[in-house]
């Protein structure tokens, strides 16, 4: 009888593994299939309009399907920066400090840089990035360069670039002065805060399949909300906004 239960359990585990593999394979396929299908649909719609010569209509349809996917691609709409700011203000609450926990083996600098830029644009002041192998920490200059590049790409020539300051080990001092215009980019390694002015992360977005914090800031995450996104690769603004919306609806009783 025990053997039978053991066998049944193993079968269940195998089914779940297969299901997981199928879902991630399909997800990749569907994404590329969806975008190809949409491109073809758009192309077929555009052709008669192009022939008819309605430039405004063309511009409208040229816009990528999900306006939320990346506001910076919106043509003729409000400035992307304003759009991000308005998205941030429309949320009931915005985290002051957000953490990105990457549990995937191979991190993507561009995608993380995008996330950082979007967070800054929406009004988040402190961003922590963590991965189990300290890859981002060891290559922080590469990440900073990528952030600068993506800022130019996503914001265009609109307004002043955001000021990013890099802290490591919590031992660097955090400047109090120009809090509004300055964004601090933080890597935490120590368990106890060096600078009192850095608040605990209210939200941590975990990317990847591993359901664990893998050692991320144990002291600081006492009241942190965790939101799970399957992968940081090709993560969109919509994914980030979705996580922020979910966070804004969380209610904490803090023991009461």
């Amino acid at each position: 009888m025990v053997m039978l239960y053991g066998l049944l359990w193993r079968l269940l585990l195998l089914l779940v593994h297969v299901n997981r593999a199928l879902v991630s394979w399909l997800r990749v396929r569907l994404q590329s299939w969806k975008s190809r299908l949409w491109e073809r649909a758009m192309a077929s719609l555009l052709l008669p309009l192009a022939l008819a010569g309605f430039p405004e209509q063309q511009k409208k349809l040229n816009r990528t399907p999900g306006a939320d996917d990346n506001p910076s691609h919106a043509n003729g709409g409000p400035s992307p920066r304003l759009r991000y700011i308005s998205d941030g203000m429309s949320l009931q609450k915005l985290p002051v400090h957000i953490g990105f926990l990457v549990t995937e083996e191979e991190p993507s600098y561009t995608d993380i840089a995008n996330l950082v830029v979007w967070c800054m644009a929406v009004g988040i002041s402190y961003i922590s990035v963590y991965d189990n192998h300290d890859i981002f920490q060891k290559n922080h200059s590469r990440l900073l360069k990528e952030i600068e590049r993506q800022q130019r790409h996503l914001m265009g020539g609109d307004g002043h670039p955001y000021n990013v300051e890099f802290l490591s080990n919590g031992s660097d001092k955090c400047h109090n002065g120009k809090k509004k215009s300055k964004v601090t980019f933080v890597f935490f390694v120590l368990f106890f805060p060096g600078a009192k002015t850095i608040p605990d992360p209210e939200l941590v977005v975990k990317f990847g399949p591993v359901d664990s914090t893998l050692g991320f800031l144990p002291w600081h995450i006492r009241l942190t909300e965790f939101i799970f996104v399957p992968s940081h690769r090709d993560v969109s603004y919509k994914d980030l906004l979705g996580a922020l919306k979910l966070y804004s609806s969380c209610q904490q009783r803090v023991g009461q």
Partner: protein
Amino acid sequence: MPKHVAFIMDGNRRFAHINNMERQDGHTQGFNKLAETLRWCKHLNIPEVTVYAFSIENFKRTQEEVDGLMDLARQKFERLLEERENLEKHGVCIRVLGDLNLLPLDLQQAIAKAVLATKNHNKCFLNVCFAYTSRYEMTNAVRELAWGVEQGLIRSSDVSETLITECLYSNKSPNPDLLIRTSGEVRLSDFLLWQTSHSCLVFQSVLWPEYSFWNLCEAILQYQLNHKSIQKARELHREHQASLQLEADRLCTAEELQHHGNGKPTDAHTRQEALLHYITCREERVQNFLTALKHKRDLFFHDLCIEATTA
């Protein structure tokens, strides 16, 4: 199979509200569910369970609710003492983790009796976090280390991540493999933050009093799916800690050699011997300190029991 599962038993009050019950009844149902879950864990051969029964933050609740919870705890601990033979038969060891000084004296005494009565049982372990927060636990561990340095039992250079772990309330237990939180909230709420850094976290939306065997199986399945990657991360972390310790030992040894040396450069053989000697001495110091700490904690429970019998 996980060897140690931790539960944040959340959702008693919401359950009571949905079912038009008094809050106190919700908590009672929650306790019944705990008893049931412990039986399931025993059947699944999970030898250790830790539960978050009462947080220091929960003292902020209404006096009525807090008193109700204290009464419930009193009842249950007294009941446990009545079941002493049964506990011995099944080898159940009960530990209570938290700042017990915050509790009413009679409850502290009941807890002390239960803990001492089951101290030597070793088949299964139930850790109840009562008047507990993880930050308090970590701060307390650091305070104990400071005490150790003050007493000359250890040096400040002996303090390491491993030693902090040995000073936590949970020092007799391995870290949890799996942490389950019910009721849909996705935060840790100051529970075992240090110990669950490499645990599988499972958040389930079911309310605690409605928890079922299948919910438990679902959580265990998730643990098994994550097992390999988490093991890998744990190994990596352990290796990193070991290399940090070795580096620290080398540094201390070099300092000592410089201090006691006669200015001449030492050869590799002497350095290696000195290093091994230093490590042996450090480990002995740490063991003595931990024994003293254990004695201090046991004395706390013994004193409570004596007070109870003389009262």
